[in-house]
């Protein structure tokens, strides 16, 4: 095992970097899309149950199946990986953003409007900052999930540590099969823990002291 890692550490680091990069970029994309959707959905009450249903049902679609469905449309490589990871990452963020935005007291919003804040100002300076801790929690859940989903992306020849796991699985019984699978899996777990710690820091840094738990 140590020899295995020793022989490939440059490759492992590079794939770890690719894996993280895929997850973080997809997470950013997913957050932007999900928060935008949540803003849209919470301003139109009839859409809210729809959004909740989508985020619940969406998570039941096997990621492997979704990837398979995408391959004939967008081909192999990075593009299907980003789409699949973003899709799954968006769902918890969407759900939390809807909950967070709905949790902002109506009286506070009215008070802000009563001071002369425009609709956009209320959104950017009141609703989003107040919903932010809840949205951040959703982002952390998404980050963990995206780490796992990104491994599946290797099936479509996407970047990252998933390739190691697939290599291990296709060589079952072979000399390094177990090493490949273990290094891939443990690597993803370590990356997930590091990312989560960073997100906790980010959350503290970006949440007003006035509403921090």
């Amino acid at each position, binding site marked *: 095992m140590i020899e295995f890692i020793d022989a490939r550490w440059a490759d492992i680091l590079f794939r770890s970097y690719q894996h993280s990069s895929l997850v973080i970029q997809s997470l950013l994309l997913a957050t932007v899309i999900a928060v935008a959707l949540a803003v849209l959905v919470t301003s139109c009450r009839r859409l809210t149950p729809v959004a909740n249903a989508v985020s619940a049902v969406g998570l039941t679609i096997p990621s492997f199946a979704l990837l398979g469905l995408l391959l004939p449309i967008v081909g192999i490589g990075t593009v299907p990986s980003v789409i699949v990871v973003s899709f799954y990452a968006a769902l918890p963020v969407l759900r939390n953003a809807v909950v967070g935005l709905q949790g902002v007291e109506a009286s506070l919003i009215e008070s802000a409007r009563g*001071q002369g804040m425009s609709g956009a100002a209320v959104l950017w300076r*009141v609703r989003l900052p107040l919903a932010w801790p809840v949205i951040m929690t959703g982002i952390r859940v998404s980050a963990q999930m995206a780490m796992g989903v990104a491994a599946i992306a290797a099936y479509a020849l996407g970047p990252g540590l998933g390739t190691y796991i697939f290599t291990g699985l296709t060589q079952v019984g072979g000399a390094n099969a177990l090493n490949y699978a273990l290094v891939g899996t443990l690597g993803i777990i370590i990356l997930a823990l590091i990312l989560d710690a960073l997100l906790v820091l980010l959350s503290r840094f970006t949440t007003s002291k006035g509403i921090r738990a």
Partner: protein
Amino acid sequence: MNQTTATAPDGSGAQLELVDVVKKYPGQSRPAVDGLSLTVPAGQTVMFVGPSGCGKTTSLKMINRLIEPTSGQILIDGEDITGQDATQLRRSIGYVIQGGGLLPHMSVAENIGLVPGLLGWDKARTKGRVEELLEMVGLDPAVYRDRFPRELSGGQQQRVGVARGLAADPPVILMDEPFGAVDPITRQRLQDELMSIQEELQKTIVCVTHDIDEAIKLGDQILILREGAEIAQYGAPEEILAAPADDFVADFIGSGSKLKQLSLLRVGDLPLSQPQTCRVGESVDEVVRRVEAAGERSVVILDAQNRPKEYLFLRSLKRHQTVPVFSHELQTVVDQRSTLSDALDAMLVSSHGGAMVTGGSRGDYLGVISYDTVTEHIRTLQTQTGQIRAVPSAGWEAS
């Protein structure tokens, strides 16, 4: 009205006029507000009172168009505001709500500086204004500026709420049950402060309350509404107490309107007694000698700024060498503008049967109002049965 405007200080109130204002919600047969017409003279405080659901809050919110009127005109300084941009309009109307309505993720300074920020004031000007307002509402800027709302007591949050409403020096200020969420003693103090601020600034204030005593105390005019925001009576507190228009109004102001008149009388209208005083830091022996020579058993302790700090029996004072510094909040202090009913409340927690009276914006000590003086006064009121007592005008009608 023009005279008032001409003599009033800069940035003071504007005349507010509602003309046949109607609010009808779809699917409801009766309008919530059915043709309300009303003129509020510049610089006056009008209290909207009435049973819940009478449309008083709806009427208030139509003035800053948080609720859009279905028809009718609302004029500020003669200008119809129903066609103006609502967001711009609200920046020129102060808005204070129950509990303060502070934004929890913003500091005290950010909350107060909200409207100046929206109006594009530069940072230095906003900062200066925030300090000025914090001083005005009795909060030390150095201590409270950077705090967050959750680090403040209910009363302090409400003070910041009032400061925020005043921030951009708007001519009209709307208040929706401003002191409904604080305890009675804090409420009384906030009311006193609002009155002294109003005396100085002379804004046009429209204030919704369910508390008739608050209305009597704060209002230059009281508007009593019944369902559909129909005017039951509109007039000065003393008129309404003296001659309720009908049974509805009489029921609403409640029984014991003699006692209610205690809410019309100010502490400063009655003679104050002058018990012995001493300063923080004085030698206790000397103070005791002086007080005993005067034949008294207790003494009022003042600080260097002449503010009352404690009202102590000599036997409690004798435990110390020099007169100590007291930093706790006193509940037995009333402003000279406080009503007699507030003073009675304060006396109830005092062991001396009296409350210390302060005046001016810095809270200078003036004397002590005793329980006996007040009961004496109630007795004279009672002997004048049937005859409505004219309200002493000291500082009251003048504002």
